[in-house]
Every structure is written in structure tokens, then in C-alpha cells.
């Protein structure tokens, strides 16, 4: 049990509940005007859940204040270069989703494997290159020709 994690999770839950009650539900959920009973309204369930979320968040914040300042939570401790690598993989993920329809899933996946392997400090470049080409091609063969999925081909090079 770490005071820090209780405070962060509780605070986030309270903020989330406040957002839902003040903006998310009023603007994101529509209800017909002729609903006679409040419990049958499409708004009822989200409001109940937001209320319980606020209750849980408040409970966690209160628990955090009553907890002794214990040892540091190992899960929250930093690793050298960790945040930079996470930032890089966030960019890779974004680029992956954005380029699939243009480059095709196979070619994007090849680049993604090489980039992620580099981030994970892979030691064998030749093996990495072989796997980066073979794995997406094998997956393409299975999903396109066995499972009948229309794998995006992209606009540059088309596969059989």
C-alpha cells in the first residue's frame, strides 16, 4: 500500500467523476423527453456510475491521508531513460495507426518491429531484420489467405 498511489488514483477518480457529472454526461448522453421514470432514462446509469466513482475516489484520498508515509512504491520508481523510451513508443504507435492505410499493414509493421526492437535495445541486427520482414508477411499470409481478412495493402506496393 503506497500513499502516493492512493492519492493519485483517488484524485484522478474524483476529477473523472466531476468531469462526467458536469460535462461528460450532460453533453455526451442524450435522453428522449418522454421518459416517465428516471430509473429507465439513459442518463440514470451513467450518473449512478459517476457517483460511485466519486465515492471510491474520495475513499481513496481519505485512506491516503490516514496511511503512514511508508516505503517508496517500487512500481512508481523511475528507470534511466524510461520516460524518453515511452515517449518514443507513443510516437511509434501514433505513426503506426496513421500510416497503415497509406503504406499498408505489412510495410508499416516491418518498420514498427525495427523501431520497437531498437527501443528495447535488441542486440542482433541481422536477426531483427529477418524477423521484422518474416513476421508481418507470415501474419499477412494467415489473415489474408486463411482467415479471409481484408488486410490493408496501402497505395505503394501490393502483395498477392
Amino acid at each position: 500500500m503506497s500513499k502516493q498511489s492512493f492519492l493519485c488514483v483517488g484524485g484522478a477518480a474524483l476529477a473523472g467523476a466531476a468531469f462526467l457529472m458536469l460535462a461528460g454526461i450532460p453533453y455526451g448522453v442524450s435522453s428522449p423527453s418522454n421518459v416517465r421514470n428516471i430509473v429507465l432514462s439513459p442518463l440514470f446509469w451513467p450518473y449512478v456510475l459517476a457517483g460511485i466513482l466519486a465515492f471510491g475516489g474520495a475513499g481513496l484520498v481519505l485512506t491516503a491521508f490516514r496511511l503512514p508515509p511508508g516505503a517508496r512504491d517500487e512500481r512508481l520508481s523511475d528507470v534511466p531513460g524510461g520516460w524518453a523510451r515511452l515517449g518514443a513508443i507513443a510516437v511509434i504507435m501514433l505513426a503506426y495507426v496513421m500510416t497503415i492505410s497509406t503504406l499498408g499493414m505489412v510495410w508499416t509493421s516491418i518498420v514498427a518491429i525495427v523501431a520497437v526492437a531498437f527501443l528495447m535495445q535488441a542486440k542482433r541486427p541481422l536477426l531483427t531484420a529477418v524477423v521484422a520482414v518474416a513476421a508481418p508477411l507470415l501474419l499477412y499470409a494467415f489473415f489474408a489467405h486463411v482467415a479471409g481478412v481484408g488486410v490493408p495493402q496501402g497505395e505503394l506496393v501490393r502483395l498477392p
Partner: protein
Amino acid sequence: MSLMDSFAAGLALVWSLESLLALVGGVLVGVIAGAIPGMSATMAVALTLPFTFAMTPITGILLLVGVYKGGIFGGSIPAILIKTPGTPASSATVLDGYPMAEKGQAGRALGMALWASCTADLISNLALILFAGWLASFALSFGPPEFFTLILFSLTIIAGVSGDSLLKGLISAIMGLLLATVGLDLVYGTNRFNFNDPNLMGGLNFIAVLIGLFAIPEILTMVWNPKGQEGQARGLGGGWVTWLDYRRCFKTIVRGSLIGVVLGSIPGIGAAPAAFLSYSEARRKSKNRDNFGKGEIEGVAASESGNNGVAGATLIPLLALGVPGDVITAIIIGAFMVHGLQPGPMMFVANADIIYGLFLGLIISSIALFFIGTVAIRGFRFVADIPKALLFPVVLVLCVYGVFAVNNNIFDIGVMFAMGWVGFMMLRFGVPAAPFLIAFILGPLLEDNFRQSMLMSGGSPEILFRGPITWFFWGLTVLTVVAIARAGLRVRSKLLEEKRT
């Protein structure tokens, strides 16, 4: 359809080359995935799910069940050889398995782990066959109020026992329930959090959420700390488990299996608590209790029988009530849904052939596990040598292909990545992901049964207390909350006491 007819129809489904290959292949994939530290049985089942789309329902489900069974056993191999449990369920196996490996008896420990796992698996499967049908026939009389209270109880216990705090579990479950409200309203068809985006009209894709929550965070963890998964594997040593060892531990194995069956049939408890309870019971009753923790073979037998005893039993609430007992069965429920099947009491009437086919397949999986496990123990060194920095990028691409294959929609890949970041943050802050996923699956059912009850009663909440079954589940829910809150208070007062001294 009589019982014999159902069994015959089930046998006809299972006794085909396709089904048997799926089962054996599933066990093999599961053992390998479970044996790789950083991969888990859950992740393996989640990644296998997209491959079942092109299969018949029974073949696909048998493949997933095979991966599940193999994965739980596979986790014991690195637990014994490199002191790193492949799955959380194998944590108790480390206590005596690794000291045995240090003494040069790794082969003996792994052999006992395999024999205990197969025995427990068989006992658990028999329990499933005996009790699931009985429970389903009882559940046929359930109406919406009964189902509402049952699901509420399941969510309470899952939220309560999954993490280090009931409140964190509660928040996780509420987040899952909230995410399940995205899409068109169940009764009026109006918009709920979909902002007129056609991609969100049908709600978020279950498989994108599931793979995002359980596979992507592992990849992000590996990126966060690439050196975190390294370990030195020990050799198997000269000895192998003997018939005499097995006979000496047999009572412990049966006890552990029964503990696994009982805990596994309660939604949410899972394999790790069963393994630890079985281990502590074995230590309490053993003549060699002083040797526990120092390399006692009975300790390995106890923990492995405890965690494998859960495997068949978790399917009892899934098949009989439509409520997943843990995360893996939540994924398996997804496979049922993908193939147009709804687990629950009605499935015993409408799809008895698939139910009995599954029962027979489970028995065959125990036998397959025995042979594949024997080979896998000897081949572990090859599995341990797979570079993680190469494996995880391939897993990432596998996730992308798998999620895309569900609806041929790139939007789902974005959902998966977003859920991956949510899962990673949950992992860092100690918020359990299991209540999130199970609540996401059960959310529509919970709301649907609640609103149906309200429609039946004209809005009166009295219907939720209409008979002994609803009272029974309300009672269990209150008991669970009180028990978990008391346990939490005890931990906190212990912490305060430690601080004072």
C-alpha cells in the same frame, strides 16, 4: 436430448483432426507462452483469440482452452528454473521449486509440477462436468432481478480480491462499467458518449479493449525497463520425479485440487490465492513442515495442484451462469460471443453438443498437457533464449493484426493502443485490470437486467428483493464487502503499528 445423446454429439464434434490439432496446438502454445517470463497465460489466450475467427466454434474454443491449460502449467517452468514465475499463479511454486533447483533437483521439481498439474486439472475438469449442468438447471429459473444481483455479487468479489485495495478494485470496475456504456442506449437507442461517430455507435470493440489492457502494458513495461526480465536458467539436474514421490504427495495433490476447485468456482478468486492456500494447508498438515521453503517436493505439488485445480472450475460459473470466473474465462466468453454463442443456462439447452464437446476436450487436454509438458521441460532452454527485445515487437504487430481482423477497422487499433496506455498506468498505480475487463463484459448485462427488472415492476426497486435467490446474492454481496473492508482495516492498523514501533 438425453445425456448420452449430448455426449455422443459432443464426441462427434471433438473427435475430428481439426479439433484435436487445435487442442494439442493450444496446449503447446500455452506451455511455451507461460514459460516465457513477461508473457502470461492471459496474454497468450488474448493473442490467440483472433486466430479462432476462421475456425468453427468448438475448434476455436478448444484452442483457447488448450492455451489456458498449457499457460498455467508453463508458468511453473521459469518459476523453478530462474526464480521468475511465468504467471502470477506460479508464485507459490518458487518457494520450494527454486531451492530444489539450487540443490540440482530441478528435473524432479518440474516433473512433480507436471504430474500434480495434470492430476489437479483432471479433478477440476470432473468437477466442472459434475456441477456445471446442475448449476445451469438451477439457473434456468433466474429472471432479470436474480441475474442483476448475481452479476452485482460477482463484480463485488472480483473488485475486492483482485488488487491491494477494495477501493482501487471498485474504481477499476466502475471504469469498465462506464466504458461499456459507450454506444447506443439499450432501450431507447439514443447516443451515449459516442458523439455521433459511427465507429462508436456499437460500443468499443471488446477484443481491442482486452488486448489493449493485457498485452500492450507488458510491451510498454518492457520498453520502460528493457533489462527487467533477465534471469539465469538452472540446469535440470540428474534426477526425475518417481512414482514413490507422487504417491507420497498424492493426498496433498488431491487436497490442493479440491481447494482449487472450490476457489475457482467462485468468480474472481483466481489461481494465485488457490496455490498459496493449498501450499499453506500442505505445510500445516505435512510431517516435513520444517523443510517447506527449503526445497520440499510436497510444497511444489501443493502449489501446482492448487493453481491447476482452478482451471476447469473457473468454467463452472462461465458455462452455467454466463459469468466469467477470471480474466482468462472473460476472454473465452469473448470467443463464445464472436461465434454467436451466449454462455449461460440456456446454452445447456440450445447448444448441448458444444458444451459436452468442450467437456470431452478438457479431459483430452489433461492428457495432452502430460505429454507436451514432459517435452517442454526439456526444451525450456530454447524458450528462455528467445530475445525479449525481438519477441515483444512481434507481439505488438500480432496485436495489431489480431485487433484489425475483428471488424476490418483501423479505429480499433487506436482503441487498443489507448487502452494499452490506460492499462500501463493502472499497472504502475496498482489498480487491478481484471475488474475493469470483467465489468466491461458484464456491464451491458448488468444494466440490461436492471432496466428489465425496473420495466417489469414499473420502476419499483422492491423487485430486486423479490425472492430467496435475490436475498441470497444480496447477503453474499454484503458479506463480501464487510470481509474485504475488515481485511483492509487490519492491514492498515498493522501498518500504523509498524510505524509506531
